[in-house]
């Protein structure tokens, strides 16, 4: 048999990553923050959540969005917030969605996931639950998520286990302080028959103020890379692709999918390129606009520009560019780097001189802050040093 046969179709004619870079007619999946209301005030909250926005989509409008997603064959949405279970119609939206071939994965801090809610969830098909937990101990978790948050998450896990929900997910944002607890967190997940999901900390929302204190060190990033390579069963939301510059690529999509294969719908229907860039610069439109979500996805100027070939930048000439694709757009943006600059956490250290040269001025702030006035956010584990040398 001629050797070229194995490279004949059905091998992709063009690598999928290149297809995805050009964008698809509909997102593969998307994140939908149902509310900015939250009982917690996590120091790294991507959406600076706390207070409900009075312009929140109504139940009927939510159903309308689901109808559109069904027509587009978006097979699942990641529901979040804020705390999505604070919406009185939370279960209505979930049930409507799964009843219309749009599967649901939702993230919760667990506070309102009582025994009855766990039983209700256990009785539903096509629903995944992710309980947030940012440490294997209250001592590590609660400084980030607030006093009592560890106990609340664990309680929710107990309820899910008691209700026979099956394999829920424990969702951890990796920080300098919990990265050493990953084995413990994995053991915790295993004990419940749950799956561990770890994601990358971004300097977005309130995370802009805690990022410098919480982000893993370079040595921790290297350890994390090897830890993940050895444990392909650990879910990552493909969020650590910047680590792939260290060698063999991590499993999953090693590409920024923002505006190309994923996006974010916020509680008031605004459509952003991804969950980590809630900022006017990355606002593509609103689901209430004529043409709805579909038109925003397919024709917005912003998303069209994100689907164009990468422009020249420092990264394109780097030997690791194919592996890391320049890293995370949101992380660059919120520390004040250009989108063509290296990722601020570039594992080759290529961003260090740029970060050192940047002053504190001109760093973009989140466009909206939903934090509850007078409610202090928990103190990070370490005191905040200046965000960067100026």
């Amino acid at each position, binding site marked *: 048999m*001629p050797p070229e046969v194995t490279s004949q179709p059905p091998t992709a004619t063009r690598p999928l990553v290149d297809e995805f870079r050009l964008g698809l007619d509909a997102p593969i999946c998307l994140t939908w923050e149902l509310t900015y209301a939250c009982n917690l005030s996590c120091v790294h909250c991507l959406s600076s959540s706390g207070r409900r926005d009075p312009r929140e989509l109504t139940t009927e409008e939510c159903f309308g969005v689901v109808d559109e997603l069904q027509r587009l064959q978006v*097979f699942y949405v990641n529901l979040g917030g804020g705390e999505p279970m604070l919406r009185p119609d939370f279960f209505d939206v979930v049930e409507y969605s799964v009843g219309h*071939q749009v599967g649901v994965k939702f993230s919760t801090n667990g506070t309102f996931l009582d025994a009855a809610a766990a039983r209700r969830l256990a009785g539903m098909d096509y629903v995944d639950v992710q309980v947030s937990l940012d440490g294997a101990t209250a001592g590590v978790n609660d400084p980030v998520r607030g006093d009592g948050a560890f106990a609340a998450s664990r309680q929710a896990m107990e309820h899910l286990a008691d209700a026979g929900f099956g394999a829920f997910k424990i969702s951890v944002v990796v920080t300098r302080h919990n990265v050493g607890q990953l084995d413990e967190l994995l053991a915790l997940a295993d004990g419940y028959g749950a799956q561990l999901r770890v994601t990358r900390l971004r300097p977005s929302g309130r995370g802009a103020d805690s990022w410098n204190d919480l982000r893993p060190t370079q040595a921790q990033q290297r350890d994390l890379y090897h830890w993940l390579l050895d444990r392909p069963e650990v879910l990552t939301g493909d969020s650590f692709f910047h680590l792939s510059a260290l060698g063999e690529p991590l499993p999953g999509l090693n590409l920024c999918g923002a505006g190309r294969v994923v996006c974010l719908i916020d509680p008031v229907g605004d459509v952003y390129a991804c969950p980590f860039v809630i900022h006017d610069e990355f606002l593509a439109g609103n689901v209430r606009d004529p043409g709805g979500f579909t038109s925003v996805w397919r024709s917005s100027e912003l998303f069209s520009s994100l689907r164009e070939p990468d422009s020249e930048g420092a990264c394109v000439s780097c030997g690791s560019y194919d592996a890391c694709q320049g890293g995370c757009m949101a992380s660059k943006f919120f520390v004040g780097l250009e989108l063509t600059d290296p990722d601020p956490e570039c594992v080759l250290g290529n961003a260090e001189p740029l970060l050192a040269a940047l002053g504190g001025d001109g760093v973009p702030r989140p466009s909206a802050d939903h934090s509850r006035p007078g409610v202090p956010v928990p103190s990070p584990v370490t005191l905040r040093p200046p965000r960067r040398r100026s």
Partner: protein
Amino acid sequence: MPVTLDDRLVLHPDVALRPERFGALAYHFGNRRLSFIKHVDLLAVVESLDGEHTVGEILDRVGVDARRHPAFLSALATLSDSEVLRAA
């Protein structure tokens, strides 16, 4: 599990296909796994699986050259492993 030309396969009833220019997305609502069908010819084969005809008959019907059969069998095996396809 390997797939042979004599097997009879069908699309898993919990799987939905979304055609794309490169092939299709295949989503399994039961195990919530997303798979990629990375070529339009493979999609044509998957859509033709009826559980009555063998894989070999369907490859012929879709017009897949015999030299490409090994690659298609391997792709079908991957899709069977992720429960996108199952034995008829």
